[in-house]
């Protein structure tokens, strides 16, 4: 068991090493098969581990494997060790399984790229790092994975490096997340100083004993960790890197910027939920940030033209839901939504990628249209995913996960009406923009002809993910419906159940409300984008929409507040102010030299004069002291 846990991240790393060192020499798609195979083995191992884990329940709730001692300095002892519990099990399942599908997809998607093997190397490195992140049983090891995925994100966003914009997007992503990471490492320091260990399990055990609920130290620590989570998960105010990150290839967007890495923040908060519970202020902030983010991103998604940017904003918005759930203490609901979101969002990105590939790098949905008949499989899967995203009642997995969040946002201890209103309005927006996307892309008249047919390696992952997007929700049904909840039961080994402060029966009512609203949203999308497009013509061109389009001008604010001053500061002093010291000293010396040199004029009588003056000075001093 423990060997397998170690092997799960190790195999993708091995794949990375092989591809990194020898990839250049591999012909054809071999590199792709190796990369996919590595993740596939990991996925297989994950299934085995999962089976054993479930078998071992409820006696053994977590397994730990220590590989080697990493750091030992003073009282800081850090081991490279992994531990597997229900939470990380779900994450590694999503990472390896969805990762495997996306790798498979990439073999075809990236075929012919001159850096084919590099791509798979980076992807394998990513999967490995992500697995380290979620398996880590130590904050520092977690941080290692955390930064590792950041690196891969950077590399993959800038994968097509020849376009400078891609490079800039990659840099932006890295720096934004780095800001969060720095807050996080400070939080880790605080943990270490207070608990003398970085072992997550021990910290979580000691925290409630050592720290009072709402104490300053707990609040600061939780806030710092939250900083890391905000950066990685693209939440307010560090969200604006994610839309730009779409510069990467579509599988990258699917894997990193939809399914896995961006949800690392969710994982972190869930993992350290005890700290957040000790800091109610911060926890509330998580909920508020989540709610605000989901709305802001929802509006922006509605304004985009680029299919991938729509999905990017949608991702931000959906992670906003997860944060909302975390903020109200609905830990398992957040994780549930994470999983379902991974399925349908990965599917959306992969579908979008397939479309873009077929249409020769066309990103603008208004230049697509009518693709329904030309790419039926893609259409159906895309439709399924969008429905799931929009949380179409009953038939989609998204409905189950999102409605659980909406319900808890109202009913849980720290939930409330306003959070729920934000959530429900967000749901409306989600329905609207996701079906806007579907209708514009697949209906109407065809504006661009697909230049190629996509192959099986692309279609298989789409279908598998589509199935999951529909059926995935069945692992967790609303309480009112017979209380079939294996998912949260599993998670309750790690995460506490959500306490509900409202009447249980209300849930059905709320579900009806949200279902209605979603349906209204879908209908309005149909109305606006198929039936009567003129209705929204004026809005589409309004300043407000432009504002949403630009992502609420966050970039502009950062530009004015941070980028410009820094660049200015750099430019005014490029030559290094401290050089005055050198130039000053040498000027003084040269001046002295010139002056003294004048006295050395070769004139004998002048020299005699200096004798006379010298003796005069000496005698004057000695006599009239």
């Amino acid at each position, binding site marked *: 068991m423990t060997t397998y846990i170690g092997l799960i991240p190790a195999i993708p790393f091995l794949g990375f090493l092989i591809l*990194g060192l020898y990839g*250049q020499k591999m012909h054809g798609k071999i590199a792709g098969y190796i990369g996919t195979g590595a993740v596939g083995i990991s996925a297989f191992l994950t299934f085995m581990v999962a089976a054993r884990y479930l078998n071992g329940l409820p006696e053994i709730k977590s397994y730990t494997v220590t590989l*080697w*001692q*990493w*750091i*030992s*300095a*003073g*009282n*800081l002892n850090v081991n*490279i060790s992994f531990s597997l519990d229900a939470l990380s099990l779900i994450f590694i399942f999503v990472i390896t399984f969805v990762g495997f599908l996306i790798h498979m997809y990439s073999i075809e998607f990236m075929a012919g790229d001159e850096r084919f093997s590099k791509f798979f190397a980076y992807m394998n490195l990513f999967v490995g790092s992500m697995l380290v992140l979620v398996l880590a049983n130590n904050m*520092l090891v977690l*941080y*290692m994975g955390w*930064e*590792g995925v950041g*690196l891969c994100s*950077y*590399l993959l966003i*800038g994968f097509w*490096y*020849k*376009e*400078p914009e*891609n*490079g*800039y997007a*990659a*840099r932006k992503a*890295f*720096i934004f997340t*780095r*800001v969060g*990471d*720095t807050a996080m*490492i*400070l939080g880790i*320091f605080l943990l*270490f*100083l207070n608990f003398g260990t970085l072992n997550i399990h021990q910290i979580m055990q000691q925290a409630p004993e050592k720290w009072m609920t709402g104490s300053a130290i707990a609040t600061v620590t939780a806030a710092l960790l939250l900083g890391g989570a905000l950066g990685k998960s693209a939440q307010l105010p560090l969200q604006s890197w994610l839309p730009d990150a779409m510069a990467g290839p579509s599988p990258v967007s699917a894997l990193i910027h939809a399914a896995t890495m961006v949800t690392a923040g969710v994982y972190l908060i869930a993992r350290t939920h005890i700290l957040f519970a000790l800091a109610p202020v911060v926890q509330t902030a998580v909920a508020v940030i989540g709610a605000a983010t989901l709305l802001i991103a929802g509006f922006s998604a509605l304004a985009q033209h680029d299919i991938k940017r729509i999905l990017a904003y949608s991702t931000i918005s959906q992670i906003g839901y997860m944060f909302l759930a975390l903020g109200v203490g609905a830990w398992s609901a957040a994780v549930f939504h994470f999983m379902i979101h991974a399925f349908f969002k990965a599917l959306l990105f992969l579908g979008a990628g397939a479309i873009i590939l077929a249409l020769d790098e066309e990103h603008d949905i208004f230049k697509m249209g009518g693709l329904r008949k030309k790419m039926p499989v893609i259409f159906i899967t895309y439709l399924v995913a969008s429905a799931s995203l929009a949380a179409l009642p009953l038939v989609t997995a998204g409905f189950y996960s999102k409605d659980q969040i909406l319900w808890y946002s109202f009913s849980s201890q720290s939930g409330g009406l306003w959070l729920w209103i934000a959530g429900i309005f967000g749901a409306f927006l989600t329905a609207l923009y996701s079906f806007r996307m579907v209708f514009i892309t697949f209906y109407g008249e065809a504006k661009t002809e697909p230049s190629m047919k996509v192959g099986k390696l692309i279609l298989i992952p789409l279908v598998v993910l589509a199935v999951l997007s529909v059926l995935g929700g069945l692992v967790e049904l609303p309480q009112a419906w017979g209380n079939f909840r294996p998912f949260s039961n599993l998670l309750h080994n790690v995460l506490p159940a959500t306490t509900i402060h409202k009447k249980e029966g209300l849930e059905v009512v709320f579900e009806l409300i949200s279902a209605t609203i979603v349906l209204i949203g879908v209908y309005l999308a149909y109305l606006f984008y198929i039936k009567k497009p003129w209705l929204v013509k004026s809005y589409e061109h309004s300043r407000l929409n432009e504002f949403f389009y630009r992502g609420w001008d966050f970039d502009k604010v950062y530009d004015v507040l941070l980028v410009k001053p*820094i660049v200015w*500061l*750099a*430019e005014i*002093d*490029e030559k*290094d102010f*401290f*050089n005055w*010291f*050198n130039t000053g000293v040498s000027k003084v010396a040269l001046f002295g030299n010139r002056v003294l040199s004048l006295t050395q004029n070769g004139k004998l009588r002048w020299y005699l004069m200096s004798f006379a003056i010298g003796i005069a000075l000496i005698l004057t001093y000695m006599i009239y002291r």
Partner: protein
Amino acid sequence: MILIDLIIVLLIGAILAWITGKWNSVLPRIISLAALVVDLFLIIPEVVGAATNQTKWLVDIDLSWIPAFGINLHLALDGLSLMMLLLTFFMGIVSVIISWKEINKRVGFFHFNLLMTLTGVVGVFLSLDLFLFYFFWELMLVPLYFMIGIWGHKNSTAVAYKFFLYTQAGGLLMLISILALYFIHGQTTGVYTFDYLQLIGTKMPASVAFLLMLGFLAAFLVKLPMIPLHTWLTEVYSEAPTAVLLSALLLKTGAYGLFRFVVPLFPFAARSFAPVGMVLGVIAILYGAKLAFAQTDLKRLIAYISVSHVGFILLGIFAFNEIAYQGVVMQMLTQGISTGALLIMAEQLSERLHTRDINQMGGLWEKVPIMGTIGLIFTMASLGLPGFGNFIAELLVLLGVFKTNVTAAVLASLGLVAAAIYSLRILQKVFYGRKSKNWEIHDLSIREKLVAGSMIIIIVGMGLFPKPVLNIAKPVVLKSLNTQNDSAFLKSQESKTKVMAENTCFLKPLNR
């Protein structure tokens, strides 16, 4: 005797290289490589000892040199010096290999200077006699001066002056402090000696100790270099030939000096200097980062990166705890390698492109993917990505500092963000983007790959398995922290000391 052998091997190698250089240009290279490899193998056995022996000096030689002044040829090896020596020899070998083809005029004399510089460096790392230390400290300057001046780029002569003058000025101030310490010790105990071990714990009034410490700091902070004494470094980096990545090594002598001499000799003064030291460290980190971001000359940029990194060393040293000190030791090693590697890359680029201006580069990944990958790896290392040794170093330093001074740690951690900004700028400008010109350049040769590969292995190795290093450093770290604890008892006696020292009258007033 092994320690003397180390020095003698280098000296003989130096002379042989020079002599043979008259007839053949390959022989000197082989000779200096051989000398370094021999030295490396000579000390490798000590590594085993270092891992087990936790208290004493591993090797200790004490011979009389100038008895009239109490000057001895006292060389000793402990974990810290052992690691610094390993780094020295490794970097020495790297620079010989790197300069194998690049240096093709006056090869013999070049290698003479290279080995002489290394002799000085090795001497500095081994000396336990302050005079001897100063001797080696000064000794390494001249050959280095020649290397910069003769084999450097356009302005190298002027740069070499600057370097020489700066370090010399610092060194002379240190000399005064050494002498003053010698006399104070002599006057209070009657034993006139330059021996480091005996001078530790010399009793003196706090104000005097502070002044003397400033003298030492002058030498070490120039070498580090600390802002505002850093300007020589940027120019040396930009003008010196590749092999003067040795200069990256020289910086370590400054850090080593702080570690070995300032803290143990002046425990209280160092403590009272700590706030200033920390401020300087933070300034170095941030100001260095800021300037690195502003540069367009690749090598100057790297120089400022190194200024920024050195801030961590300074910060860590004045944190006075074990974690930070371990971090400092790590930082000394890893920064040497990562900055060295970046410098090598920069030199390889500028040699191929005939420009160092990053605005003229761009899109080079396509042409030189291997170099790009290596550049990427070391950029990531230098921005402190986990998995590389630099991360461990910066983490430990920050953590240690965090323990003692939260503000400094928080400000310094801004350096991590800044590091991301300037480091990625290198990648963006050099390797990413469109090709600015149709460069016709070749990728790394096998020789260059070998060097880069070994450096990658070491830096990753230190990132993933830093424990051997930390273990070897541990006794040293504890030792230098213990002198501070010992001095807790001194403090109680300080009032007594003060009277005594005033009687002995260190600074004779002009009462004639």
